[in-house]
């Protein structure tokens, strides 16, 4: 299971990095969102107690690590908020400047 998750984390980081290296502001914003999700999956993967059942429910002898779930819950909210903020900025930029190309940023500088 850990191997599958590790491969998934690696694949997500690859996709995210590829996206943020592009020129399109929207693709950068989505790439960052993918990166955040990769980090969240990484947190779940590194959880110290690889459990079989839900924590605190006393369903089995090997409960999962509740701390990673708490962390991921927080991190999901933060990542979602940041990605939304970036999308909002991209929307404002495209409205003001009629472009979503990062190359144009250089020309915008006074």
């Amino acid at each position, binding site marked *: 299971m850990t191997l599958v998750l590790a491969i998934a984390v690696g694949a997500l980081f690859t996709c995210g990095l590829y996206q943020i290296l592009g020129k399109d502001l929207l693709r*950068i914003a989505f790439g960052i969102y993918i990166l*955040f999700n990769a980090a969240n999956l990484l947190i779940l993967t590194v959880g110290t107690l690889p459990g079989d059942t839900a924590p605190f429910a006393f369903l089995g002898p090997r409960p999962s690590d509740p*701390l990673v779930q708490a962390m991921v819950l927080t991190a999901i909210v933060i990542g979602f908020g940041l990605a939304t903020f*970036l999308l909002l900025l991209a929307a404002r930029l495209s409205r003001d400047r009629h472009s979503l190309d990062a190359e144009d940023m250089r020309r915008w500088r*006074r």
Partner: protein
Amino acid sequence: MASLTGLALPLLVAVPLAGIVAMLFAWGRPVASAWIALVTSLAALAAAAALVAEFAPVTPVEQSGPVAPVAPVAQATRVPGAGLPVHEVGGWPPPFGIALAPDRLGLTLAVLTGFLFSCGTAYHLGRTLLERRAATGAAGPHAVYPLAFPLLLLALLGLFTTGDLFNFYVFFELLAVSSYMLVALGKHEPIEAAWKYSAQSVVGSVSLLVGVALLYGRTGSLDLHDIALRLDEPALVAAPFFLLAFLLKAAVFPFHFWQPDAHAAATTEGSMILAGVLIKVGLFGLMRLGPILFGDRIAWLLLTIGGATILFGAAAAWRQADAKRLLGFSSVSQLGFVLVAIGWGTEGALAAAVFFVVAHSLAKALLFMATGFLADPLGSTEFAVLQGRGASRPLAAAAYLAGVLSLAGLPLTAGFVAKVGVLRQGVELGSWAIVGVAVLGSLLTLAYGLRAFQLLFWANPPAQPAPPAPPAHWAGKAALTVLATAVVALGLAPGPLWALCEAAARDVAGGSYRSATR
């Protein structure tokens, strides 16, 4: 005075929270919001000062002998860091609960934060009152803008005092988001600068999150003291991710692209806070988490980046045609000095680094505020517009000159003590190449600083007459005077602050992660 301890530490976080709530009730009323921001900052300053007054060392500890490298983790864990305040949030003892457990480095920076926020919000109040009096009908800042002050204050004070790794990340994010507000609601080309800043900063955030995850996977704990106990050597796997996040936040040489634009876009008080405390957060992270992450393994890297940063920033500052971009590149250059001192990593060097951070924050905030006195009435920060406009503003001129001299490290200013402290460490360690770079950087600082001063306050103004500018408000003038006094006073009597910085350095080098139970 246990009651004071028990109260002041949670108050550091509670006061900005109360300020946020109060500001929601004053929604859409700029003057009331500005007053709330000022009162919140002053209250936070008082709480931080009370903590420092209680926990500042009266007598320095014995070990002032020859140079000792940064303690490796195994040694660090033997030092319990006794005598520091702890607040167990909700009564849960660490490592299960989340504790506020600052070391003296965090307390020093908390006082600095409170002081700079007080000055910045005083300027904001003055500007708001002036704008209301003028009643030009021009749109002021957005109603949400003043909310950035207590939010940032909360994030900074929380970051400086937390003893929990994930809490550190959350405050780091809160800090980033509220500083995006400061830039995106600024005056000049704000959206472009905000995009640049946010996109780069968010990459740092992801990196920090990955680092936290890896460190948690390695140790199974989030309490900083507990992590230090569980590691027997620096966590080098997680280290690069933390390093990227901190260097991006500090805006040193290869990662500086967002910083001058963000400064130029933000308002005067926004720039003061950005340059004063925000970019110092990366350095705080390096110093606070350095012992568990790197030990002394990356000294060469920090020295290389620091040296390159000093020269690049100074050279770039010389070429700027915009007063605030010049100050932004100057911050890039000056932070190189701190990075070099952290790279040396001895207790003396770390003490000099902390003092340098304080001195640079005060001087840079002073310079931004003095620039704001000229630039805010004219609505531009370019030298072409501002040229010679300061001739009729003696207070701003004196403050700007004090800031430039302190920045360049001339005697009788705080910057002198800081620069001499850093250079002395370099000489003691025989690191002559870096010392040469630092001296050259100081000379370049003096050159571009005096050039800016000459352009703003001495040169002949352009032919067309200036639009009539209202005199500055008393609140802004008072803040400017207080800041300038602080810069000069710390140069004349650096003793108490230097003792505090030495204590902070001892805490850092000793790895003072602690929790109440140990």
